[in-house]
């Protein structure tokens, strides 16, 4: 094939594929997590939404049944009254960010614990997503990851890999109380998919930590991390 896209095009095509909707659940989760942390990618997605949205003009409207709005209303009222409104959540987020910034290892584990609702909530997606990023203010790799239990695979995309030349960035998963297990060397713009590592199949999968170390070219020769940790993260329910 002669029309292999240039590397700078890969991200834009990934954004287009996400908008078109041709990806798997895990790939979609990775893209959504990436949008939250990578403004350039989010811009690319929104540009594609604008390009393709006119197609939706063809779709005939269908009036929803009268029961839908009361269910929406019940859920927003419950959230705001029981929990002191959005400020509760914003406050909690600000506090956890401050805590993260103060600690050496930045762990981006965001608990996803919506309050009980009277309306029937949709079944949660069988996905855990994670984002790995460097300590605040430092350059380093950015990785979006998703653990797709429907396909039994771990998918991740490196949005960027900023480390010194001549070295490799190696991704590790650290299940609670266990030693790090290598998921391999990562490269920018590369999407990787792996069968679900055994360490991530148990009930504690959501508490595993993801980390990136700087290793010699090609990765750690010992199977254990040797170099400095430059970015860490964790999973959250999606």
């Amino acid at each position, binding site marked *: 094939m002669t029309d292999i896209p240039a590397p700078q095009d890969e991200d834009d095509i990934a954004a287009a594929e996400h908008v078109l909707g041709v990806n798997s659940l895990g790939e979609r989760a990775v893209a959504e997590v990436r949008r939250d942390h990578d403004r350039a990618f989010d811009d690319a997605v929104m540009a594609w939404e604008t390009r393709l949205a006119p197609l*939706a003009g063809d779709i005939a409207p269908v009036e929803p049944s009268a029961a839908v709005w009361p269910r929406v209303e019940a859920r927003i009222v419950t959230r705001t009254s029981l929990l002191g409104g959005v400020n509760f959540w914003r406050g909690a987020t600000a506090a956890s960010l401050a805590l993260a910034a103060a600690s050496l290892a930045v762990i981006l584990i965001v608990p996803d614990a919506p309050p009980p609702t009277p309306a029937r909530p949709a079944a949660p997606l069988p996905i855990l997503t994670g984002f790995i990023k460097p300590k605040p203010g430092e350059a380093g790799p950015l990785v979006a990851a998703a653990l797709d239990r429907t396909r039994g695979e771990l998918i991740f995309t490196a949005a960027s890999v900023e480390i010194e030349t001549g070295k490799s960035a190696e991704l590790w998963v650290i299940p609670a109380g266990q030693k790090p297990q290598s998921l391999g060397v990562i490269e920018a713009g590369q999407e990787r998919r792996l069968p679900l590592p055994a360490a991530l199949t148990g009930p504690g999968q959501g508490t595993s930590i993801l980390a990136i170390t700087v290793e010699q070219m090609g990765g750690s020769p010992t199977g254990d991390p040797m170099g400095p940790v430059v970015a860490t993260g964790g999973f959250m329910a999606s």
Partner: protein
Amino acid sequence: MTADLERAALTRALSRVAARDAVALREVYRRTSAKLLGVVLRILHDRQEAEDVLQEVYITVWNKADRFDAERASPITWLVSIARNRAIDRLRARRSTAPIEAAAAVADPAPSAQMALEAASDRARLESCLDQLEPQHASAVRTAFFQGVTYEALAHSLSVPVGTMKTWIRRSLISLRGCLQS
């Protein structure tokens, strides 16, 4: 109402939703829920499930309205995108995938009477760019957009290898981008 007026009204309502105004969310719902249910139903083909997703869509709007930026997107594009995203995620999470309809048979609707929600000129430009693609490729793009199906399902429905389908779609997307920029 013209597209411009609708856009301005929705933008104002969304900024009030961002300030946690439930009445404003009701207004967004009134103006857009029929359109968004149409979009979701087109992907899910199940009324009950589509209405569940529609409910999730407006909860998402409630939670994310502060991230809507009128400089970056039109409000209806932003809302349709949330609806498509939620519907496609739901489709993917189904245990078994129902066979999709043959792409060529359903996915090439003639441009219909223009909804006030979309600017007619944008639609005409996109159509003329789609017309420049190979008909089979354009049909695959439309099917992907309307039905939210994977590369694998698209390839299966048209009896071509997955790699071929990826090439068709990616090439088409690059062509569309170039055509729409010119």
